[in-house]
C-alpha cells in the first residue's frame, strides 16, 4: 500500500491541517514518476563522481574504492537524465521504462 502524500486516503483519515510527521519522505517512493532509467556501462565508467554530484535528487550512492561505481536508488530516481548528460565518458544511457 502506498504511503505519504500520494497515498489514497479517505478524507476523514487525513491529519487535521494536512500535516505530515518528519521523515515521511522515506515512505513516499517517487521512483514511479520515472519514464526512463539510467543504465551504467561499468566498463567505461572512470568513477569520477559527476553523476553523484550532479544528481538533483541525491539518489546516487558511492559504492566505495573497491567497487568503484555509483549506484542509483530507483525508489527515488525520477529519470531526469542529468547524470547521463553530465557523464564525461558518456557511459550512462537513459533506457525507456517498460510498464
Amino acid at each position, binding site marked *: 500500500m502506498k504511503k505519504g502524500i500520494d497515498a489514497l486516503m479517505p478524507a476523514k483519515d487525513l491529519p487535521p491541517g*494536512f500535516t505530515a510527521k518528519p521523515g515521511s519522505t522515506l515512505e513516499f517512493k517517487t521512483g514511479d514518476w520515472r519514464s526512463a532509467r539510467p543504465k551504467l556501462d561499468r566498463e567505461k565508467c572512470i568513477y569520477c563522481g559527476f553523476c553523484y554530484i550532479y544528481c538533483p535528487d541525491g539518489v546516487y550512492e558511492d559504492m566505495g574504492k573497491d567497487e568503484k561505481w555509483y549506484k542509483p536508488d530507483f525508489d527515488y530516481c525520477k529519470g531526469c537524465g542529468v547524470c547521463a548528460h553530465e557523464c564525461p565518458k558518456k557511459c550512462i544511457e537513459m533506457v525507456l521504462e517498460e510498464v
Partner: protein
Amino acid sequence: MAKPVGLEVSLAVAEAVRLCDADVVAAYPITPQTHIVEHLSDLVANGELDAEYIPVESEQSAMSSCLGSSAAGARTFTATSSQGLALMNEMLFIAPVLRTPIVMAIANRALSAPINIWNDHSDIMSVRDVGWLALFAENGQEALDLTILSFRIAEDRRVSLPVTINIDGFTLSHFIEPVLLPELEEVRKWLPPFDPLVKLDVANPISIGLLGTPESYTEARKITDDILLGSLPVVKEAFGEFREAFGREYKVVESYRADDAESILVTMGSISETAMTAVDELREDGESVGVARIRLWRPFPVEDFKKAVGHAKNLIVIDRHISMGVPDGPVALEVKSLFYHDPCDKKPVITNFVLGLGGRDVTRDDFKHIVKKAREHTRENCQTRFELVGVWEE
C-alpha cells in the same frame, strides 16, 4: 457590570481584541480599516495588550505572518479592507485547509477601478467561497461582540477555521456609538486559552503547508468544506453561551417584523438599520413588509434562513456588489438556489436590487422604492436582471 461608553466602532473592535488577549497582530494599514490596527498598535506600545505587533510591508505579508503565528499556537488577529483583502488573496485560501483559526476584521470597502475608498461589499464577496467563516455586523455593539465571539468560534477544536467579521467601512468603522465594553475578567473567563488543533512544536515536529497530489487534494478540500458546513451548530452554541454570559442575544439570521410579512427585505450589514426604519414607516402605511438580516454568511445557514423567510410572497434581496457577467448579485444567486427544489406554489417571487456601491448613500426612500418595484413582479412577469437602484442613465 459593563458601562456604556462612546467609542468609535474601529476602536471598539480593537478593544475587543485587547479583551481577548490576542498574542499576535500582523497588519498593514488601509482605509477604512486603519483605526482598528492603529489603536491596536497603541495598545501594544503602551503595554495594555501583551502581544507582538508585526508592522508588515503588505497585506500578503500580513496574512502570511498570521498563518505562521497561528500555526505556532498564538491567538492571531488582523484587519484589512478592499485592495488589502485582494492582496491577501492567495493566503486566504490556505488558512482554512491548514486549520489556522485567524480572526480578521474587514472594514468593507469597494475595489478599484475607479479608485474608491468608500463602503460596499465587493471585497468580501470576491473571496466568499475560500473557506473562512464570515459574520456581518450591523452596529458598533455587534462589531465588538462578534469580535469576541469570533475568537471563541474560530478556536473551538471542532471548527479550528479562520473567521472574518465584516464591518461596513466608514458607515460603521468611523462612527462613534455607545457600546457596552465587557470587563476584562468577564471576557478572559468566557474565552478559554487557545489550545490549537494543529501546532508547530519543536517537541513534536510536523510539516505544514504540504503538496497535495491529485490523489489527496480532493479529500483535503472536501474535509475542509465539511468542517465549515459543520461549524453552524458550534456558532449557534457560542451565540447561546454569549447570551448567558453577557446578556446580548444573537441569531444567525435576524428577523424584524417579518413573521407575518408578505414581502421580506433580505439585507446584510449596517444598511439593515435603514431598512428597519423604512419598514416601520411602510407598516404605518399598511404595507406588509419585514426584514431578514443574514448575520452568518458563511457557512450559509440554509435552514434558519428558509425558516425566517419561507412564508413570504416576495423576497427582495439586496446586494452591495455587482457580480459582473451574471444577472444576479451574489446574495440573490444563493437565495434563488435555496428555493430551486421547492414546489412552485411554495416559492416566493425573488427580486434582486443592487445599491450602495462605492459609498453611495442608502436611504429609507430607496427601500420604499425597492418594495414598490418588487411588487410589480410576479412569477409570470419576473425580473430578468437585478435593478441597479439610483443609477443615472439619462
